[in-house]
């Protein structure tokens, strides 16, 4: 059983020192650390199970295939999807959205049709659509957010009334604001207008359990490395009837049924979207990673501690003179982006680093959002379930010291 007391025993990386200080890792929104169950699994996969999947008849390939497919089943169960073949493996959220920007657009959009994104998107939910627009003549429209970081639902409703809108691609939780978007309500609004919804769950999947069936989202994308799995693995969930219509994004091995020099018949879902040899060990390690995540989300201790950390850090940041938090709406995850009058974000991050506190600074891949608040960069501290309240206290103390050095 993982508890708030013993969770850190699962993360050997957290016990190290940097510059002679205990490491306090608060860059979890960029990548989370991996528990022993995932580290050990990856090692034993390399030692005992490594082979290519799906085709060969030998024993090792059979084992690798079973583990690979058990990764798919773990994701299906985690997202509460109906069918296993609705789970497509990609290299990450970015690749999932790029797949959509090709295959969805090709299947469902004509020149002049519109894809709507929100103002709070990560670059990976902006650039693929801009590229699709250049390629296919679709248009990209931006739904605004309120100053507190919540989505402006009224404005969204208006924008979606345009009959040319075919897809709303929106973040579940922004990597800058940490505010949870009301996905169920957003999906209802979109579906009322006949608009499909893709949710960028890169941050959302970590902090907010999602049931794709309950919310009725059409597509959901996330990355393994933000939820205890290795880098280089991601997921695109899509409703079967939609994925069936969509053409493949990449051609190659494993995604075909029959190939002749004249014509190729594609494999059925999900392999149609998984051309080439996949990141097999990483797919398989989604199983221990998501099991770990489930244990945490089932445990009220962690929910309580997360709430404590949100309350404590919000309160402490608010008393710092000249400090502004971006994203104050609720519900909010323990992710805090802020700016301080007269103090540069890079300076703060560098000083904190020398105190052992790892935070992110800069534009954090959301330049349009940060610019819309009138800033050239922010400082971001993002907590994971293995971060303690004591670490939050050291972070606040270190921040005070950094500011006094810099001011």
């Amino acid at each position, binding site marked *: 059983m993982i508890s708030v007391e013993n969770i850190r025993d699962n993360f050997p990386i957290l016990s190290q020192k940097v*510059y002679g200080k205990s490491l306090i890792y608060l860059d979890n929104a960029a990548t989370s650390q991996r528990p022993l169950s995932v580290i050990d699994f990856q090692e034993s996969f390399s030692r005992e199970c490594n082979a290519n999947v799906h085709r060969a008849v030998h024993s090792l390939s059979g084992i690798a295939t079973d583990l690979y497919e058990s990764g798919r089943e773990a994701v299906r169960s985690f997202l509460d999807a109906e069918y296993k073949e609705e789970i497509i493996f990609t290299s990450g959220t970015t690749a999932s959205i790029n797949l959509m920007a090709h295959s969805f657009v090709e299947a469902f959009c004509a020149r002049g049709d519109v894809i709507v994104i929100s103002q709070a998107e990560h670059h990976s939910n902006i650039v693929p659509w801009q590229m699709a627009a250049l390629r296919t003549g679709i248009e990209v429209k931006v739904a605004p957010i309120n100053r507190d970081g919540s989505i402006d639902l009224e404005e969204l409703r208006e924008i979606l009334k345009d009959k040319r809108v075919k897809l709303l691609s929106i973040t579940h939780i922004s990597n800058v604001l940490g505010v949870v978007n009301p996905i169920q309500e957003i999906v209802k609004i979109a579906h009322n207008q006949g608009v499909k919804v893709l949710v960028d769950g890169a941050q959302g999947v970590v902090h907010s359990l999602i049931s794709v069936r309950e919310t009725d989202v059409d597509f959901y994308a996330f990355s393994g490395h933000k939820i205890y799995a290795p880098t280089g693995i991601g997921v695109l969930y899509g409703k079967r009837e939609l994925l069936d219509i969509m053409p493949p994004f990449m051609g190659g091995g494993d995604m075909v049924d029959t190939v002749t020099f004249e014509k190729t018949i594609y494999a059925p879902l999900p392999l149609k979207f998984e051309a080439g040899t996949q990141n097999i060990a990483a797919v398989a390690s989604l199983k221990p990673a998501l099991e770990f995540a489930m244990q945490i989300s089932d445990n009220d201790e962690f929910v309580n501690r997360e709430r404590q950390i949100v309350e404590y850090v919000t309160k402490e940041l608010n008393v710092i003179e000249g400090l502004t938090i971006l994203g104050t709406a609720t519900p909010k995850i323990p992710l805090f982006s802020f700016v301080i009058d007269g103090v*540069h*974000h*890079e*300076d703060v991050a*560098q*000083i904190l680093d*020398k*105190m052992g506190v790892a935070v992110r*600074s*800069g*534009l954090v891949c959301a330049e349009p959002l940060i610019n819309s608040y009138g800033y*050239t*960069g922010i400082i971001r501290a993002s907590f994971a379930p293995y971060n303690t309240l004591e670490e939050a206290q050291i972070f606040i103390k270190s921040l005070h010291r950094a500011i006094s*050095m*810099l001011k």
Partner: protein
Amino acid sequence: MTLKEEEIAIVEEFAMFDEWLDKYEYLIDLGKNLPIIPEDSKSDDKLIKGCQSRVWLDSKFEDGKLFFQADSDAIITKGIIALLIRVYNGREPQEIIDSDFSFIEKIGLKDNLSPTRANGLVSMIQQIKLFANEYR
């Protein structure tokens, strides 16, 4: 002092700090004392944009020597700029071409000059070198 001697002097100054934070205190002081370049010199053609801090660099060539003025919106970057100016300002082009900027690494600030840091300093050094090459 020659360029080389100035570099050695800086490395010796930094060797006195045992603590990382003391080193940064010193850089912050240097940054705060670096003369601010006038706003009209901070035009976009002198701006080196980065994801982190921005750097403005103004260079001129007079009497066979190169002169630099620079500024940044971040104070630690400004501190490093102050060191670079101390070493490279008023030098002949050949002196700059012959130098390898390795003193930054020797004082433990290599990370600040990593190309992936995207804070304008790397481009600043490249521009100093380019400028020196132009007038060699």
